[in-house]
């Protein structure tokens, strides 16, 4: 039986690696099984210039993958080799090895420290180094997104470039941004916590009532994708869905004027139900 159990434990790294590799390479849809997985079980498409987070993910994936396969293989071999039913050698009566302990403390420590330091620049880029204008001043936000149970209220500053003035454009759940430009968005909450999650832009930031925060990203692909709320905000959390449309500059302007014109005719009332 020892052999069977060793092999059962060997299936862990085998199936583990197989699952990741087939998801990465889009080897699904699996044909034949009763569960026909569709394709695309990996990162949502990357619509921003910044691929550094994906890169960091892969670095960790490969480093941890080596450890995962290594420990799995060692466990298998030990169980196979030292099965009490077949192993005739006397037990190795050992209480440990100082040299080994030192090696397997220092080595992971160095790798872990390397991983931590290697992340720092990307983190600063995502959260600390806010994009600037040509003259070095920090870039003002394109719009403000306010989370509210269970919708995203979006407010563009209009001609005067200032929020909360009469020429603001108010839209609901429908964010439009121009392509090929650093986009800065001010995010806030009116009531409880929400999280402003743009899977395709690799952006996620909790919105906290009473705190004004900024997120930024640089879209390079035109198209429509999702705004997801990623922080439990009440019974309707699942339906707090918005849409982000990346347009070229001309298309963006056209949309903006049309939306503004429509708002003017409906006399500043906030569009309540759209979707």
């Amino acid at each position, binding site marked *: 039986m020892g052999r069977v159990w060793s092999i059962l434990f060997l299936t862990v790294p085998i199936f583990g690696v197989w699952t990741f590799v087939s998801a990465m390479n889009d080897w699904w849809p699996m044909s034949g099984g009763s569960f026909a997985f569709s394709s695309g079980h990996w990162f949502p498409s990357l619509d921003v210039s910044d691929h550094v987070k994906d890169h960091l993910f892969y670095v960790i994936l490969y480093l941890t993958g080596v450890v995962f396969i290594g420990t799995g293989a060692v*466990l298998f071999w030990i169980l196979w080799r030292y099965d009490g039913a077949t192993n005739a050698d006397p037990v190795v009566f050992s209480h440990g090895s100082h040299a080994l302990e030192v090696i397997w403390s220092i080595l992971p420590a160095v790798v872990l420290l390397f991983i931590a330091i290697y992340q*720092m620049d990307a983190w600063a880029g995502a959260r600390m180094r806010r994009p600037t204008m040509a003259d070095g001043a920090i870039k003002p936000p394109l719009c403000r997104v306010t989370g509210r149970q269970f919708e995203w209220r979006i407010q563009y500053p209009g001609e005067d470039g200032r929020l909360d003035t009469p020429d603001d454009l108010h839209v609901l759940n429908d964010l439009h941004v121009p392509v090929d430009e650093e986009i800065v968005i001010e995010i806030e909450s009116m009531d409880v916590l929400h999280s402003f999650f743009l899977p395709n832009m690799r952006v996620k930031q*909790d919105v906290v009532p009473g705190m004004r925060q900024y997120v930024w990203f640089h879209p390079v692909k035109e198209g429509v994708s999702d705004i997801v709320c990623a922080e439990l905000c009440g019974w309707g959390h699942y339906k707090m869905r918005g849409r982000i449309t990346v347009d070229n500059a001309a298309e963006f302007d056209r949309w903006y004027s049309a939306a503004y014109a429509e708002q003017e005719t409906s006399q500043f009332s906030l569009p309540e139900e759209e979707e």
Partner: protein
Amino acid sequence: MSTTTIDSHTQAAADEMTVGHFLSTYVFSKDHKVIGIQFLFSTLIWFVVGGMLALGIRWQLAWPWSDMPIIGGMLFPEQGGQIAPEFYTVLVTMHATVMIFLVIIPILAGAFGNFLIPLMIGADDMAFPTLNMLSYWFMWPAFFFFGGAFFCDGHGAAAGWTSYPPLSDMTTSAPSSGAAQTLWLLGVTTVGVSSMLGSVNYMTTIIQMRAPGMTMFRLPLTIWAMFITALLQAFALPVLTAAGFMMLADRLIGTGFFLPEGLVVNNSPMAAGGGQPLLWQHLFWFYSHPAVYIMILPAMGMVSDILACFSRKPIFGYKPMVYSICGIAGLGFIVWGHHMFVSGMNPGLGMTFMVATMMIALPSAVKTFNWLGTVYGGKVQFTTPMLFALSFVSMFVIGGLSGIFMAATPVDIVIHDTYFIVAHFHYVLFAGTAMAVFGSIYFWFPKMFGRMMNETAGKIHFALTFIFLNGTFFTMHILGVGGFPRRLADPYHYPTFSHLLTMNQFMTVCAICMVAVQIIFAVNFFYSLFWGPKAGRNPWRANGLEWQAPSPPGHGNFDFQPIVYRGPYEYGSPETEEDFYPQTMPPKQDRDNLA
């Protein structure tokens, strides 16, 4: 339970079993073994409840808004058997709450801590038996608070097991934020009281009541882990309790610790202000990060004991094992911010917490290598407890490695609050701790009840659980990389996630099978309780003191004064002919002198 647990003072009156005697022996007992077994049965019952709640979640994710078979009509007649969105948030909240506060924490410290500590250190009971009894009976208010929440408006608390304000702080923010949320807070507080009473007792007992010769470095690793866990509890719990009272005050008397100015909730403006929602997150995680180690260190200790016993070999690197338990505990207090990388916390602080979190993976790695070193070169006996212990090692590696992804702040931006996190903590808590608990039940069942559990049924239980748990939880990593968010009743109406439905159906089928397989365990458990073969004192030929006591041990535990001559892991020592060397057996030259 057998009749040997008879209080010596009432020995004479034992023939006429009075009600009072029955109550003091089996119900309000101060005997650590009875209390441990009470904890064990209570937590196993809640384990069933928690499992059912989990199936509710899985049902909704696989077949959203469709009628639940069999029980749906009973539970939600008003929706025609469907899970309502607000009830889905109850499910995720109460599943986690039950599993963490009513199952994992009390089964490790309450059941195994209570049962094993005095036996393994050679004491006749805990230092404070009355306190010990109270620590169990303080669980009952918690059972009623959490259970009662299901019968309030909203049918249970629904702000997540993390209960982030303002959602949890305002009585108007959701259908469940009235009485149900208040009861949730009271429940967490009473569980805390119970844990605190237990911790004080464990620390005192381990420091004061060890048998002659039982030095700190001759303690089994289980006891070291219980000791450090008790320390963690004692230092972290007061913070959670204080935070709980602050939130109760916010809710009941209108303070505003966690509420900022100018909130408008459900179209009604809030009066209080001047507080900060992030304050709760800091206080909560200051407890709850150490708590995740409270939920695994005892399991690591018990796994170490099982691995050494069935490898017939000393534990590899005993002292490094002890130091890494201490290292995990120490670092555990300075990493709580890794739960808050995207919360709005100062990003500079995020970097600090990232480095500390990376470093906490180090002692975990050291422990894993030492476990492998323990099995290496041994004579492995593939008993049921051993299989569960080996699976702990294999699965903990996965949980530890996924931790590194989330510790990396930029990567965490992408995977935070997705199924990647859900995968991580199920690998450490279910595939790790719960599997170790199963192994420990199989291992110490003979000592608890004097009878053996069935090995064949145990192995079938192990193999099927192991396969289905990986089918359920491994795929969660892939979902998480795809961005699939947690706690969402219906993610499929987002075009980004709609194609992930079939994978969820596969996972749900695995989860249903996994739960069904536990019936094998339940039958084995209850059958063996009454009809299992008699165990004898030391069925596994193990070294620990508990195995020198009768099975089950009577009141006062030992029928001789245990004297300890060596550590608990001297398996395969050249000094004896047997392949084990009990801690109480005098050294060879003493035996020769006697002869």
